[in-house]
């Protein structure tokens, strides 16, 4: 099957990697749980950040693991994997993945 053409510019690929539609919810759950547990505002915000970073890292790892699969066939149309479709990111192993 033919390889898909790159569809993301580098900034766009970075933005897509953040998966804000999912990671914000995960971060909110982590932060809300911390606040509910009596951690206070500052510590809860730090835990929100920790949860968000872990979620972004997790989704990026998933993208990285599937970068070769997601470049071909129907998966290329479905997954919108920036690590599969942005050649510069693939070359550099960008985001230190």
């Amino acid at each position, binding site marked *: 099957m033919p390889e898909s053409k790159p569809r993301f510019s580098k900034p766009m690929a970075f933005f897509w990697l953040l998966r804000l539609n999912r990671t914000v919810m995960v971060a909110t759950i982590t932060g809300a749980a911390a606040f509910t547990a009596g951690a206070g505002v500052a510590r809860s915000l730090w835990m929100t950040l920790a949860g*968000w970073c872990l979620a972004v890292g997790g989704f990026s790892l998933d993208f990285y693991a599937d970068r070769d699969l997601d470049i071909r066939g129907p998966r290329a149309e479905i997954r919108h994997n920036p690590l599969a479709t942005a050649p510069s990111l693939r070359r550099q192993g960008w985001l230190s993945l």
Partner: protein
Amino acid sequence: MTFIAASFVVTFLIAPWALLPWGIILAVIVGLALHLFETPLARALTLGLLQALYALVGAEAGRLSLGLGLLAGMFFFAMFGGRGMIGIRDFPQDEVTRVQTLPKRYGAKRTAQFTAVNLLISYALSLAAYFTGEFSIIYLYLDLAFIAIGLVCAWLFATRPSPKLAYVLTMVFMMGEGFLICLAMILGSL
């Protein structure tokens, strides 16, 4: 790895005990990346487990209580069942791939029933959390709204499951219901 390392450092500095659920999350994420959980139920279980573990990571920054444990269970069942909704939403695309999903294995109707039952369990757990006495009446009001919206959505989905409806409902759950229960947790514990 940059984001994961940053998360590790922050978690270690703020709540070292949270590294236990944090490590389990990382193990599940690595397992998913290595395609170790490819069966439909395993995928649903990991999704539910991840949400519950994220709640526990946050809870370890303070005092883990029965109410928070019930809410972690609520997140587990909501997302465990939510996987069925996602499977029906993505069914037209998944048909042309080899990915195994709940609707492909068990059919749309049984998947919708599976989702509805899990959502009902999650609503029961969210209500049970109030009766631990750890939350104020504000939590109850918001939780009742959360349950009412959720029951309507679950009933709609169980009676006429379709990718289009699943698309709309996943938006309702991700953007609306998720934030509503988090707001209930925060305001209810003030």
